[in-house]
C-alpha cells in the first residue's frame, strides 16, 4: 500500500520544529510500524535527505524505548501494544498518518521523534527501590507473600516505563507510572517497611520534574501498552494520605 506520512521534524531541543510530508510506498501489511519507517528512511537516505530519528530497541514490546504519537494516539491505534508491535495492516492504502514525539514539558524533545525521559529515572532514583544490600538477605522463602499480593504486585511491576501515560494525559501527569512503582513495592512485605518514605519522596520528585496533576481522565490507562490500571493511582493517593499528619490523630 501507499501512504503519506506527516512527520514532526525538529533538529534539536531549541529548534521550533515542523511537520514534513513524506511518501511511504510499497508498504506491506506485514511490516511493523517501525519497519515501515525503516523503509521510508532508506528511501530518504538514497535521496540525500536526513532520515527520521526515532527511538527503538528490542522491537518486541518490552524495553519501552519506542515512543511516538501516531495519529494523535500514543503508540498508535492498536490496543495493548507499543509502536514496535503495531502492524501496518491496521492502516489502509492511501492513509495519511501523523507522527509526533511524546509531548510533555517534562520530556523535552531531543530530535525529531526522540525525547528525553530522564525524569522517569529521577523519580525511581528518589525512592523507587527497596534498601536491600547485596548478600546478607534472608532466604527467599523466609517471608511468605500471599499469592494475591504477589500477583497484584506483578500487575503493577509490568510497567515498561515508556511514558505513553504521560503523553496521553491532557495534564502530562506521571501518576500512573509513579503509582505503579509505589504499588509494586508497597504490596510486598520487603518494600512495605519504607512505604511511607517512598511515596512521599517519589511524589515530591514527580512534582519537581514538571509533570501535571491527575484529574481522572483515565487516558493513561487507555494508552498503557501493558494494561496498568488507574486503580493503582487511587492506591497511591491512599498511601500518600496515610503519611499526612492528620492520618495519625
Amino acid at each position, binding site marked *: 500500500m501507499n501512504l503519506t506520512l506527516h512527520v514532526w521534524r525538529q533538529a534539536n531541543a531549541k529548534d521550533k520544529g515542523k511537520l514534513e510530508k513524506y511518501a511511504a510506498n510499497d508498504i506491506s501489511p506485514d511490516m511493523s510500524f517501525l519497519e515501515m519507517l525503516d523503509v521510508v528512511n532508506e528511501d530518504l537516505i538514497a535521496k540525500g535527505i536526513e532520515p527520521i530519528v526515532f527511538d527503538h530497541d528490542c522491537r518486541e514490546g518490552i524495553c519501552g*524505548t519506542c515512543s511516538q504519537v501516531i495519529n494523535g494516539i500514543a503508540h498508535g491505534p*492498536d490496543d495493548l501494544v507499543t509502536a514496535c508491535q503495531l502492524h501496518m495492516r491496521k492502516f489502509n492504502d492511501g492513509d495519511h498518518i501523523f507522527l509526533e514525539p511524546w509531548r510533555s514539558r517534562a520530556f523535552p524533545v531531543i530530535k525529531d521523534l526522540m525525547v528525553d525521559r530522564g525524569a522517569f529515572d529521577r523519580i525511581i532514583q528518589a525512592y523507587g527501590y527497596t534498601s536491600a544490600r547485596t*548478600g546478607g538477605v534472608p532466604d*527467599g*522463602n523466609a517471608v511468605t507473600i500471599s499469592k494475591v499480593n504477589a500477583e497484584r504486585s506483578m500487575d503493577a511491576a509490568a510497567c515498561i516505563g515508556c511514558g505513553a501515560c504521560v503523553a496521553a494525559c491532557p495534564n502530562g501527569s506521571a501518576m500512573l507510572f509513579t503509582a505503579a512503582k509505589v504499588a509494586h513495592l508497597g504490596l510486598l512485605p520487603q518494600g512495605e517497611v519504607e512505604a511511607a518514605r517512598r511515596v512521599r519522596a517519589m511524589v515530591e520528585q514527580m512534582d519537581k520534574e514538571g509533570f501535571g496533576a491527575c484529574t481522572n481522565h483515565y487516558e493513561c490507562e487507555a494508552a498503557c501498552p501493558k494494561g496498568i490500571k488507574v486503580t493503582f493511582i487511587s492506591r497511591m493517593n491512599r498511601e500518600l494520605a496515610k503519611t499526612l499528619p492528620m492520618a495519625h490523630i
Partner: protein
Amino acid sequence: MILDGKCPTGPIEKSWDKHRQDMKLVNPANKRKYKIIMVGTGLAGGAGAATLGELGYNVEAFCYQDSSRRAHSIAAQGGINAAKNYPNDGDSIFRLFYDTIKGGDFRAREADVWRLSQVSNNIIDQCVAQGVPFGRDYAGYLDNRSFGGAQVSRTFFARGQTGQQLLIGAYQALSRQVKEGTVKLHERKEMVDLVLVDGVAKGITVRNMITGEIESHWADAVCLATGGYVNVFYLSTNAMGCSVTANWKAAKKGAFFANPCYTQIHPTCIPQTGDHQSKLTLMSESLRNDGRIWVPKKKEDCEKQPHEIAEQDRDYYLERKYPSFGNLAPRDIASRAAKEQCDDGRGVGPGKRGVYLDFDDSIKRLGQKTIAERYGNLFDMYEKITDENGYQRPMRIYPAPHYAMGGLWVDYNLQSNIPGLFVLGEANFSVHGANRLGASALMQGLADGYFVIPYTIANYLAQVKPGEVKADHPEFKKSKEDAEGQTKKLLGINGKKTVTEFHRELGKIMWNNVGMARSEASLKEAIKRIPELREEFWTNVKVTGVGAEVNQQLENAGRVADFLEFGELLARDALHRDESCGGHFRTEHQTPDGEAMRDDENFCYVAAWEYKGTDKAPELHKEPLKFDNVHLAVRSYK
C-alpha cells in the same frame, strides 16, 4: 600460548569459598579512592555497578540506551534457575552443575560452572529482597517450574517477564546508588574504544550520542558487560542496538576472543516475512510440548492452505527422523532439521522459510480451552505479528540466532588477559560451553554482577595504586583522535549503499555459511566473501548527517564496521574447530542420525584468538579443559 584459567585447586565443592578467603581485600576507607567503569547496564552490568557502588567504590556506568532499565536482558521471558530444591525433587548444587556442564557439551570450565551453581541460591534471595514479584503458591512460598535440559523443577519465574523483573530489580538497586552518589550514570553514550596505558586497561573512549562529542573516561579498572554479538547475523532475537563493538574494540587492543563460533540458534521463532524485516521474535519453546511440526511432502503443495494438504502428504519430519524424541528433539537438532526441509524447497509461508507447528491434534484431544490456558498469550502474540489464528491454522516457525556463548576470554576472576579489564555476563565466554540450557543466562548475568565481580575486582585493585592515570594521559588523546578519525572517514565516503544494506548482506553470508550447519566449504566461502564486503563498505557506504549531533546512521555504521571484521573471526574459529559440539555443527562430523560428534581427543579446549590486524590471520591460543568431576561423555537426551 597455553592459557591459564587460574582455577582454584582442591575439591570443587570448596573451590569458590577457598578462593574468596585467599583473595585480597580493599580497606573500606580506601574503596572510594578507586574508580571503576562499568560498560553496559543489563543484568550483569546493572547488578555489578550497583553492588560495587554499594561497597563504596566510585562507579561510572555507561549504556547506549536512554535509560539503564532498557538493556536487552529485559526481553528474557522464561525464568532463572537455582538449586534451592524447594520442590524436594532431588536438586542440589551438584545436579545444577552437572546439567550445565553436560548441556554445554563439555566445553565450559568446571570451576566456573560450580561457582555459578553455588551462588544461584543467593541470587533468588537477593531478588526477593529487592521486591522481584516471583510466582508464589497459595501458601505464600516461591513456585517453581521445569525447563529444558533438566529433570527437576528449579526454575523461578515472574510470569513471562522474568528477565524484565530481574533487570528492574538491578536497575532499582542501581538507582539507589545513584541517589547515594556512589554511581554516576552515563546514558546514551556508546563505548567506541578501550584505552590501555602500558598494557593495562585504564579507561574508555565513548561517543555521546546526543552531542556527538567523543569523550575520554579514566578508571582504575574497566568492566565490560555489553551482552552478545548474534546481530552479526543481521536478523536475530536481539535488540537492534546489540553489537559486538565494545568487545571487538577490546579485542583489537589485545583482549583474546574465545570461542566466537558458539552461537545458539533457537528453533521456535516467528519466521521472516520479507526483506524489510528488522528482527525476529522468539516464542516459548514450550509450544513444542503440544504442537506437531511438519512440512508438505511435495514441493508443489507449499503454496496451498495447510488444511488442503492431506494427512498422507504431510511430512512430520522430526517424528520421522527422531522417533524417540520427536517434536521435543533438542534445540540444535530441531533447528537444523527445519533448515534442511526449507533448503529442500519444502518450506511454507512468505519466502518459504518456515515450517508448520500444528496444534490440531492437541485441540482435538484436549480441547481448545486447555490449549488456550497453557499457551494463550503466545497465540495472542503470534496473531498480533502474523495476523493468523494459531488455533485455526498451524503456526509457522523458523529458527533464529538467539544467544552468544563465545565472548572475551576471562580467567576465574573474570579478568581478561589484559590486566584491569574484566568481562561479565554474555560478553564473556565462561560458563555455557558450546550450548546454553534454558533459564541459565539470567543466572549467569546476576551471578557475575552481584556475587563474583565484587570479590574478584577487589583482589586486583588491592594491588593497584588508585588514580595513577587520568584522562589527560596521551593514550586517551590518541584513542579520541582515532575515534574522531573513524567518524570523519565514515561520513566522508558518501557512497551508494546504506549501512542496513551492508548489514543485511553480511547477515546473509553469515546465516548461509556460518549458521546452524557449517562445512569446510561454506566456511571458506564466508572467509573469502566477508573481506570483499568489508572493502566495499569502506568505499561505498553512505552515511548522512554530521558527527556532532544525534546521528543514528553513524552509530549503526560503526557497529556494522565492527561486525564486518568480527564475522570473519567467527568463521575462522568455526573452520579451525574440526568437530561438532553444541551450537557449533560441522556437517562433516555427525552420527548417522544427525547428532553432533565431538572430538575430545583434539578439541577439548577453549579457542582464544589474538587479533593481529584486520587483514592478517589471528593467532590461536588454547586453554585445555579438564573434567575431574563430570566425566566426558556423549551428550545424549534419548
